[in-house]
């Protein structure tokens, strides 16, 4: 997919902590085209968050160092770009939806204030000028896009007055303020209950379809991937071990790791085999014993 909006090639990142150097990313590559819902899957510690931060330019230099590879967005290699150029892209052409709605909003300011400030500075970077009323109108507009029923009331509220699901929508709205072309969603809805999460995921899926966004979804939840994404990258120890169209991946996983990953998801129907990665199967063993 060389016409992808975002193309990550052979990215390697090292982290230095307490004198030890960890190779967190080892030549990871992935593509995110427009109008596609791409998933990046892996266990905790596989490097998915680092990948995301690298793309967004949020890695802090100590302790992280990018040791190789390229990140190409819309034809420009971000790693070779100046800080000013990256700043201009961040929050405007490419935007991020944060994971934890409980802690990602500043508790002492209203939604309108926070979103308004973000919009103000995004506008500045794009050279656009809006006055306060126009900004507020845009805030309401975006809140409506994320299916909030009463955007004005939400905008006036403080985060503590909103439920988890509403806050997550606000986070998505924040990301949409400047009409980004690429959206990276970090474990969307993991902090919420299953039903609310489903709504959020549906919202994201609709946004891809309606607005032609390129969406990169970072998650550890295979069930979510199956339901929403069209292409999957499986990450393990900082490299992509398998990638395929979603249906193909689930139907015929090629790598052992992928197979284990899929098999370790609890199933709601069928037998009660319980298999965790790297562990034995006690029931099968017990069965085997009983029959001998």
């Amino acid at each position: 997919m060389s016409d992808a909006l975002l193309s990550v090639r052979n990215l390697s990142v090292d982290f230095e902590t307490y004198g030890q150097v960890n190779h967190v990313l080892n030549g990871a590559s992935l593509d995110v085209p427009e109008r596609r819902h791409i998933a990046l899957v892996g266990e905790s510690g596989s490097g998915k968050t680092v990948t995301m931060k690298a793309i967004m330019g949020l890695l802090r230099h100590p302790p992280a160092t990018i040791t190789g590879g390229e990140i190409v967005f819309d034809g420009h290699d971000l790693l070779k770009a100046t800080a000013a150029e990256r700043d201009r892209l961040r929050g405007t052409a490419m935007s991020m939806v944060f994971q934890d709605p409980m802690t990602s909003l500043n508790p002492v300011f209203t939604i309108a204030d926070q979103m308004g400030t973000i919009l103000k500075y995004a506008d500045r970077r794009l050279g656009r000028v809006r006055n306060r009323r126009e900004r507020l109108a845009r805030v309401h507009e975006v809140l409506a896009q994320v299916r909030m029923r009463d955007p004005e009331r939400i905008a006036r509220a403080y985060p503590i007055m909103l439920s988890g699901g509403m806050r997550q929508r606000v986070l998505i709205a924040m990301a949409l303020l400047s009409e980004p072309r690429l959206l990276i969603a970090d474990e969307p809805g993991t902090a919420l209950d299953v039903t609310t999460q489903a709504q959020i995921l549906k919202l994201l899926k609709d946004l891809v379809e309606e607005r032609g966004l390129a969406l990169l979804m970072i998650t550890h939840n295979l069930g979510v991937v199956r339901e929403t994404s069209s292409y999957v990258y499986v990450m393990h120890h900082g490299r992509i071990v398998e990638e395929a169209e979603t249906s193909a991946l689930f139907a015929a996983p090629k790598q052992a790791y992928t197979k284990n990953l899929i098999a370790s998801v609890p199933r709601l129907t069928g037998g009660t085999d319980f298999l965790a990665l790297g562990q034995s199967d006690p029931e099968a063993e017990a069965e085997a014993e009983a029959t001998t």
Partner: protein
Amino acid sequence: MEFLLFLIRRVLWSILVLVGLSIVIFVIARVVPGDPARMALGPRATPEMVADLQHKLGLDRPIIEQYGLFIAGLAHGDLGRSLLSERQVTADIRDSFAATFELVLATILLAEIFGVPLGVLASRWKDRWPDNLVRVIAILSAVTPTFFLALLLQILAGYVLHWLPTTGRLSHDIGFTPDITGLAVVDSLLRGRPDVTLDALRHLLLPATALGAATMGQMARLTRTSMLEVMNQDYIEAARAFGVPEWLRVLKYTLRPSFVPPLTILGLEFASMIGNAFVVELIFSWPGMAAYGIRTILQKDLNAVMGVVMVSGVFFVVVNLIIDVLVGFVDPRIRIRGAR
């Protein structure tokens, strides 16, 4: 709307505390010493004189009734008669309270105006020299006894920097009495006498510094700690991700939530500040409640002493109420949830 409820709750609470305070003070002054009349009149009083004073003060009535009278008097702002000066205690205190109030107000302003920015600087340049410098200043100001600092400053002013006065609230020959708010600085501006304002400020500087040094140090350290905690929060990182510039992140987004702990502690600190104000007043000959308080204590004028303690207590409660309101204003979580 929720703000109003919050306010009402805090006010009721304060009233409760004040009632409790009045009981405690009453107990101390009336019940503990045994016989205030005898104490006031001294050992050479005859039984008739004692009985006479007892009757005048209503000490021969049942305790509950005495307390009732006390409260009723309080409600009218009547703190009783001074056992010695025969004047209304209220009148005596009122004159001196304004001076103390002005000093304390100036001190708080000074502590906040210098303490908070120092704390912000320290957090911004963590572990570098500004941080260490602030830390040293804060520790030194916390461990230096207020009276010691006051003495040192007085020497400094008297023998080195001759342009700062060493005693008093206004120069003797200035001929001005603050009669509107009781605050020399404010009233002089209102009456169009900026020369007096300058004079008053010059007189305020040293006592306020001596009194406020320790608090300033604490504010700085608390602000620093709060800022560091807030800086690590996800929402600051999120703001960074969205391109909000650093100066705004620091001055607005990080500073606002950080304001709460220093402010709350200021309220608690205030009690010590009133106590230390007494000492500072004595050293700088400031015409505040301290001089009055010490005199009446030495003379065992119990009504007056009770009055002073009561006024201090009320002052404390009111200041804390104001601070709680400010905190509720700054942090919506507190006014909505009523958390503390």
